[in-house]
């Protein structure tokens, strides 16, 4: 009996809506499934959908609408770090919870956010050693979009590359959304590298891979090993441009499990598009609703404090396998995987961690499983 309201805050319009709409859809699908199965504690979930319009200012405004006027205790939302940063003060100062589904750069620890996407160590800790050893590539050209995520990824990668006996030959950035890759690719050509580590995000990815091929480079000799290139971009660029390159993510559409197959099918029928692709942040958007539901059920109420207390340790069998919310830092244990893209636009999973990896948002700053900086109460800066 009764209803529980939650916020769903993604961009429905503007440039980022391309990805964010799929996140909103996944969230709504999860809500619908939970409702169909009887809701949370017998309550129906009522989603309040708001449009962040791809603009941090709007995200901030809509977040305060949800948290302050509609008084929803939980919001599922945000894709970019910039939008998360813009809404963070609202959630922290109004004590409301944000469930954030995207892989991100780390360096954040908020008692008001549950992070269900990968942090750098969950994408890189097997990727880099694998590149060095299995692929045998030692000279790495690091390239990314010019903002914090790629820069932090680069920082973590450099540590790992050096630990594994490789070297990085360059660390270059291009404006977000920029699509002119001529100069960069010819730098890659001239650098003498034997692999590229790409932290390029968004639509720039497509022009990158296309230019890479147009300048006569091939993934056989110099593979692009990417941390962000997902099914969406592959589908958009034309599979032949990516064929042979690699990506590291906890989730791929290609994961061969009954849960995942069923998930893809349900999603496709939910959005009414038989060729819709699924991807990491979207899958997190989906399973994080279930984690939330379990927490509410365990706590018996939906208040932010109760959720925070109950969410740690929640485990769920997500399409990508078992996920667990770390009770220490409210990030999520995920299983890193590496896929090689094929001519059909699908990845083949060629390497996976045997088990979920512990999230360490401060890994570039020396965080280790023995010495965690982030706690449920927020950052413990005395440990820094």
């Amino acid at each position, binding site marked *: 009996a009764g209803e529980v309201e939650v916020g769903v805050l993604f961009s429905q319009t503007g440039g980022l*809506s*391309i990805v964010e709409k799929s996140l909103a859809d996944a969230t709504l699908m999860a809500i619908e499934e939970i409702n169909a199965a009887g809701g949370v504690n017998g309550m129906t979930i009522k989603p309040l959908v708001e449009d962040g319009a791809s603009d941090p200012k709007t995200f901030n405004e809509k977040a305060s609408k949800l948290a302050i006027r509609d008084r929803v205790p939980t919001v599922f939302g945000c894709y970019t770090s910039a939008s998360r940063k813009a809404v963070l003060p609202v959630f922290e100062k109004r004590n409301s919870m944000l469930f954030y589904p995207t892989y991100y750069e780390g360096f954040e620890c908020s008692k008001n956010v549950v992070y269900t996407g990968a942090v750098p160590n969950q994408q890189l800790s097997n990727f880099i050693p694998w590149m060095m050893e299995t692929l045998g590539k030692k000279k790495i050209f690091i390239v990314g979009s010019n903002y914090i995520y790629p820069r932090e990824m680069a920082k973590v990668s450099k540590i790992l590359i050096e630990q594994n006996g490789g070297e990085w030959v360059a660390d270059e950035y291009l*404006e977000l959304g920029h*699509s002119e890759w*001529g*100069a960069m690719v010819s730098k890659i050509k001239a650098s003498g590298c034997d692999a590229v580590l790409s932290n390029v995000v968004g*639509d720039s990815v*497509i022009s990158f891979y296309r230019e890479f091929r147009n300048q*006569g480079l091939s993934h056989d000799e110099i593979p692009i090993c990417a941390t962000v290139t997902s099914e969406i971009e592959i589908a958009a660029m034309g599979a032949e441009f990516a064929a042979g390159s690699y990506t590291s993510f906890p989730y791929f559409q290609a994961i061969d499990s009954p849960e995942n197959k069923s998930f893809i099918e349900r999603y496709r029928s939910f959005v009414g598009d038989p060729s819709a692709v699924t991807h990491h942040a979207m899958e997190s958007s989906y399973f994080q609703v279930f984690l939330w539901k379990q927490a509410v059920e365990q706590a018996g109420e939906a208040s932010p404090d109760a959720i925070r207390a109950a969410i740690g340790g929640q485990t769920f069998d997500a399409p990508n396998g078992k996920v667990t919310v770390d009770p220490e830092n409210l990030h999520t244990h995920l299983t890193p995987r590496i896929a090689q893209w094929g001519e059909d636009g699908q990845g083949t999973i060629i390497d996976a961690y045997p088990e979920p990896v512990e999230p360490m948002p401060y890994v570039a700053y020396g965080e280790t499983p023995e010495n965690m900086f982030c706690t449920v109460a927020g950052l413990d800066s005395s440990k820094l």
Partner: protein
Amino acid sequence: MTETLFIGLSLSSILLLIALGLSITYGAMGVINMAHGELVMIGAYTGVLSGIYLNLNLLFALPLAFMVSALLGLALERLVIRRLYGRIIDTLLATWGVAIVLQQLIRLEFGLSFFGIHVDGLGPGLQSMDVPSFLTQPFEIAGVPIQTYRSFIILVTLLLTLLTWFLMYRTSMGVQVRAIMRNPQIAAACGIDVRRVSAFTFAYGSGLAGVAGVLLAGFKTVMPEMGASTVVDGFLVVVVGGVGSLLGTVLASAMLGQINGVFAILTNDILARAIVFGVVIAIILWRPRGLFSFRSR
């Protein structure tokens, strides 16, 4: 070195491709068409859709996209621009609104998504255009590998520039266009059909945007926002070159493209872009009417 020059040249050709249409609609007609980028986008989508539905390859999509964008430009001129001639800032504002509308329409697949109808190739997702394989294999000139597709763009841009120059300076249509730009009343009093010529000119400039869209779609993501960022660069080129001067537009794009290319190689792309903006500001301060412009008393 040759490669750097080639990169600069291809950057230039893309700038010119965008700026060419603007140099007509803005330079010759005094319309700041903020929706120009959206016409580019429509051209790109025309390419994508004609690939999906008509199985046309890029070469044949070019004239089709020209037609589609030109028709759209014609409609735009009829419905909006026509009432705004001589009010340059108002054209900027109104077409800004048009740009928002066009983007959103494509995103909503012309609003059909309201009714649950889905058009393959349109919509909010990322799209791309297939490039025939003979345009993707790099070739070599004197040991330097040259990109075929970039060369193709340079060639098409060159042809379009010549065509435009011929139309504007060697045909009576061109005289009429330029006369209208300077003084529509006296042009009309001299027997020039202002409405028809304006509509034609605007449609032509818009059509050029459509062609640019297809060519860009060959190496850029096709999505509703793809044009928005190009239009600013286009304006910078037209203004730096001198409004109304085709030669200025060509030289300005050559110069800015080379500066961008050289600095991108020497330093990085971000700094290169910053330098380009700096150069633009400096040039306008130095020659407030652009590099090539006529000064009356």
